[in-house]
């Protein structure tokens, strides 16, 4: 056998190797879709430290700054999105997440009505190698409570707290919301109207938002020849 192998030319030897590889391939199964790998300890650490959350205030600041280094994904159904969606958000269903045009090194923020849906989507994306994915703290409910309809501090609040609320009030007004009065014993503590929590029109921030700017920057040449 050894002698016969030595008698073969290089091309013939390569032919034999190719034949053997082809024959073994009959029993093989290539990976033709996403395979999930999960590092349980790393995920547990991330969950405990809250490193995977973005606060509504932080997101509002990004939108106001016109940042283009993040993708905000709205996971809710069409009817909910039509009623209201956070500026710069892109509608994506959870089942379409892995087929959406997302790069694994992009900063992605997920949100639903609350954290539940986004947390599940977060797990799916982490298992597929998306390292910079986060969820919006509190989901849309958190956005409403913290950005659109912030609660004013009571009359005993200190100067720093009042200044912080003034900033939040301006942000709330920008996004079309209205601050809420702090309630004690059923009566408003300060003379602010209690809004009806009706969702405002989406305000497009000046200078372009993260979603549209990033999407246009990401518009790349068609693949293939």
């Amino acid at each position, binding site marked *: 056998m050894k002698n016969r192998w030595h008698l073969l030319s290089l091309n013939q030897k390569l*032919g034999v190797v*190719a034949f053997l590889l*082809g024959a073994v391939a009959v029993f093989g199964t*290539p990976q033709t879709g996403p395979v999930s*790998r999960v590092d349980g300890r790393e995920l547990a650490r991330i969950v405990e430290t809250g490193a995977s959350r973005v606060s509504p205030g932080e997101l509002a600041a990004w939108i106001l700054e016109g940042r283009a280094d993040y993708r905000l994904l709205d996971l809710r159904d069409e009817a909910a999105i039509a009623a209201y969606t956070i500026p710069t958000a892109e509608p994506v269903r959870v089942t379409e997440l892995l087929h959406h045009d997302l790069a694994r090194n992009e900063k992605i923020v997920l949100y639903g009505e609350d954290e539940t849906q986004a947390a599940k989507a977060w797990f799916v994306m982490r298992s597929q*190698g998306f390292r910079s994915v986060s969820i919006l703290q509190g989901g849309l409910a958190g956005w409403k409570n913290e950005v659109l309809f912030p609660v004013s501090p009571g009359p005993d609040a200190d100067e720093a707290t009042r200044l912080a609320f003034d900033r939040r009030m301006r942000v709330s007004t920008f996004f079309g919301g209205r601050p809420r009065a702090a309630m004690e014993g059923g009566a408003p503590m300060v003379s602010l109207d209690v809004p009806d929590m009706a969702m405002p029109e989406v305000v497009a921030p000046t200078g372009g938002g993260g979603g549209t700017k990033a999407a246009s920057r990401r518009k790349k040449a068609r693949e293939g020849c």
Partner: protein
Amino acid sequence: MNAPFYKFGFFGDEVSLVIAFVIGLGFGICLEQAGFGSARKLAAQFYLTDMAVFKVMFTAIITAMLGVFYLSWMGVVDVSLVYLTPTYLVPQVVGGLLLGVGFVIGGYCPGTSVVAMATGKMDAIVFLLGVTAGIFGFGELYPLLKDFSVSTAMGQVTLPEFFHFSYGLVVFLVVLMALGGFAGATWVEQRFRKVES
């Protein structure tokens, strides 16, 4: 699994262009070293006296196919993320015939004409001028050709999907086809060289 590297975000569009340039340089060097900068050698493929083009290209196909298959089997490459050119059956058959006619008349295909031009061959420069004129002509005629160019669309179809065979079986059959083709090409070369001489 972390390949294709581009799809997994290891580098962006700018670096991908640099990598494409480097790969293109390497491809050109290999073509030139294989003698594919010579119009005589390339055109001889069509006269069946030198089947080097068939053998080299089919060898490249087999090498890439086995490499991608085994890397995917080992869990390194996600085959579903590898780009597939969509199939438009009739337009691509017609385009292939046109390219073949141009190939045998001019002695080059577009890639080898660039290789030959890099080595200073005047006929390659003329060929490339013809390619450029053809591109502009196609561009001007595209409104008339657009419907035809997207007709008989079959989507991104693969042989395993089309024949309902397993990937591994298709790999084995293509290897068999290649080995048979190499043997047949050698026989054809010897026969037609004898006839020529």
